């Protein structure tokens, strides 16, 4: 254990990253597909000499600029910010392994911004063909960003041959690279339709609005097949232990899986409803409902992907709590606290029992468990352990049946300290009263 851990308690358990990631994923995929949407419609407007459609494309491009560049760009930076705070060891590992992948992604990010500014500000002023070329450059840059990030994210779940070779390319073109790329490309195209509803719903011209609604519905429907097919292929490509965790083991992940299977057809049906001629007042509300459904859908997917990776942050390489797999034997021997640079106490004594237990919880468990918080709260799930002995033997078996958790790392004394902290400590406190037999172990906290 190399790094300090931000003491979040309530907002622990990955709450912050979930918050930032879900909104970012939605907008960033939209930012990719949206480029193709714009140029396709622009071309069509030129071909049909349709001034109304062209005007819509221009309006949509402003919306697109404000949503994808400002919000998408900054939440993307935000994800980076957040993971560096929540899991610096994994961030450092990703940065050092893929530094030139990130750097190349940055180049495309620059290209994207330049292209989008030029596209937006020269709309109607530039030669038509050139304007479409700029649109294409935007789309290619944005898709290349997806291509690069996709490799790095996929690596976290399925590092594949990288575990042996430690070579950039084998980590990048990992076993889920291609299926995930197809899936994400499908998502990004579907989302253009979804966001298209939003801008179209506010058009005053009735006929134009209906026409564009229908176009957007087609943009949802066709890539939907790509998304579902790609998603299925992706799922098949996930290797065994992770697949079982997704399907049966982790109660949390199974919930999200259910959510996903419901949200997907609902998203499709809701989008098709938009193709029907409906009153504008309804469309104005319903378009946001669809965005909401899409948010739930992609949110559920991201949770499953993250959940399936448990107990690792980088599969077979680093646990969620920032411990390298290769360091575990050494930690078991020397003790977890001694091996942690930022632990306050290096050894458990009667005096520091609670403090040491608190540190152990913070460093080993808080990555996945909040304390009285919205995500994976530890408090209710430990209520059934009302003695330190019970808790201690639970910790002994941790990660064996419930293999979505790492097993406990550290010495017997450390395990005892953690059990004490969970059962009697000031934060979780299963049992207020201290039983006779435990008084010997219990010393006042702080």
């Amino acid at each position, binding site marked *: 254990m190399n790094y300090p851990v931000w003491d979040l308690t309530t907002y622990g358990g990955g709450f912050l990253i979930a918050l930032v990631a879900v909104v970012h994923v939605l907008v960033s995929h939209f930012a990719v597909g949206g480029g193709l949407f714009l140029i396709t419609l622009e071309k069509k407007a030129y071909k049909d000499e349709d001034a109304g459609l062209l005007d819509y494309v221009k309006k949509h491009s402003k919306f697109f600029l404000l949503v994808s*560049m400002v919000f998408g760009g900054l939440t993307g930076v935000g994800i980076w*910010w957040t993971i560096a705070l929540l899991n610096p060891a994994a961030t450092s590992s990703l940065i050092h392994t893929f*530094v*030139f992948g990130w750097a190349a992604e940055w*180049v495309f990010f620059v290209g994207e911004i330049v292209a989008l500014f*030029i596209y937006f500000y020269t709309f109607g002023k*530039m030669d038509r063909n050139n304007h479409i070329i700029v649109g294409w450059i935007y789309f290619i840059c944005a898709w290349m960003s997806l291509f690069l990030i996709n490799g790095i994210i996929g690596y976290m779940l399925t590092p594949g041959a990288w575990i042996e070779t430690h070579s*950039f390319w084998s980590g990048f073109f990992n076993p889920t690279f291609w299926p995930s790329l197809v899936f994400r490309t499908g998502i990004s195209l579907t989302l253009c339709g979804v966001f298209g509803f939003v801008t179209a719903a506010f058009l005053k011209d009735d006929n134009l609005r209906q026409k564009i609604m229908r176009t957007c519905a087609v943009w949802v429907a066709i890539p939907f097949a790509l998304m579902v097919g790609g998603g299925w292929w992706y799922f098949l490509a996930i290797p065994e232990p992770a697949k079982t965790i997704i399907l049966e083991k982790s109660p949390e992940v199974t919930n999200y899986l259910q959510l996903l299977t419901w949200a997907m057809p609902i998203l499709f049906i809701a989008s098709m409803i938009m193709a029907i001629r409906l009153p504008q007042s309804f469309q104005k509300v319903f378009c946001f409902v669809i965005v909401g459904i899409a948010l739930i859908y992609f949110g559920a997917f991201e949770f499953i992907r993250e959940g399936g990776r448990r107990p690792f942050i980088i599969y077979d390489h680093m646990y969620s709590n920032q411990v390298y797999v290769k360091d575990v034997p050494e930690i078991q021997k020397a003790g977890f606290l001694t091996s942690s640079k*930022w632990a306050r106490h290096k050894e458990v004594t009667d005096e520091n029992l609670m403090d040491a237990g608190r540190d152990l919880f913070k460093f080993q468990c808080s990555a996945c468990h909040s304390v009285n918080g919205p995500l994976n709260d530890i408090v209710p799930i430990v209520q059934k352990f009302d003695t330190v002995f019970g808790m201690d033997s639970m910790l002994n078996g941790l990660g064996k049946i419930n293999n979505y958790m790492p097993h406990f790392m550290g010495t017997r004394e450390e395990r005892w300290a953690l059990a004490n902290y969970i059962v009697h400590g000031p934060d979780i406190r299963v049992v207020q009263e201290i039983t006779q037999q435990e008084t010997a172990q219990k010393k006042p906290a702080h």
Partner: protein
Amino acid sequence: MNPATLIPTPDAIPVPWGWFYILLMLTFLLHILVMNAMLGGGIIALISSFRGGEQNTLLSKEFGYKWPYTIAFAVNMGVAPLLFVQVLYGQFIYSSSILMAVWWFSIFGLLILAYYAAYIYDFKFEALGSLRIFVLEFSVLILLFVGFLFSNNMTLMLQPEKWQAYFTSGSGTLLNLSDPSLIPRYLHFVVGSVAVAGLFLALVGHYRFTKSSVDRDALISKGMGYFTYATVIQIFIGIWFLIALPKNIMMVFMGGSGYGTILLLIGIVLAFAALYFGYKQQVAMASVITLVTLVIMIFMRDLVRIAYLKPYFQLSDLTVQPEYSPMIFFLVVFAIGLALIGYMLKLAFGCRKEVTK
């Protein structure tokens, strides 16, 4: 406790550190240039709004057109140096960021607010009327605050001695306020940004990049005015910053190291040259000199970092596990990216001419 025991073990790098060092310096220069235009420009627009009058209002409007670009590119150009600083100094910057996690986490949320405010300022300049100044203040204050947080982290990461505060509170609310060099360092960046932004506005006038009906000559003379005044103040703040540094680090620039001392001397000479050309309103010469000064300052800033970390770490300590092909891939992508950007700019300026004809 020996603070060195807190410093995490760094990960290995794929090519020798010199490559990352060059990339860090280069991309940081780009970031600073755009960031200065963004922050300093906002400050100048605010001062102009307070002063009032037709040309001042037009100047704030003109800057309003440019503002969203500068924010977009300041963030964008900031990503790269942040990447490379993590590659070279990750064990320091991750740790210090966690110590001030609440502040650090707030940055991108604050930037989203500032960014949208800048767009409102740009798109709704006329419609906002007297509310305009509040939008401007809102955004400028956020940007100033974000800059302050950066100064905090950039100094905190260099001082593992201070990290023990984590053991009193791990909730991530620490700042580096007790550091006597923090305020002058921060002001050095803020005042510098006003100088560079003044120059930026003068260049906008000089090369006829104006979009509003602001008078070109007024824009140039006002821009050069801000440049010159800010440079005068900057010289004094620079001296304050220098003497606020710990003595051993200050001495790097005062004879301790030949390289450091020469950089400082060149920096001083260039600052006075910049003043002269600023006073004479020679935009092109002042720009060239400022650019060179910035390069010198960036290398000096890095010497400060190296001196702070000397007891703990030097870049040559990093282990290299060589793998060159990804770097070659990056360099190819970089070249293609530059070509694409050049091509698009050509298209954009081509159509500008058509329109003005």
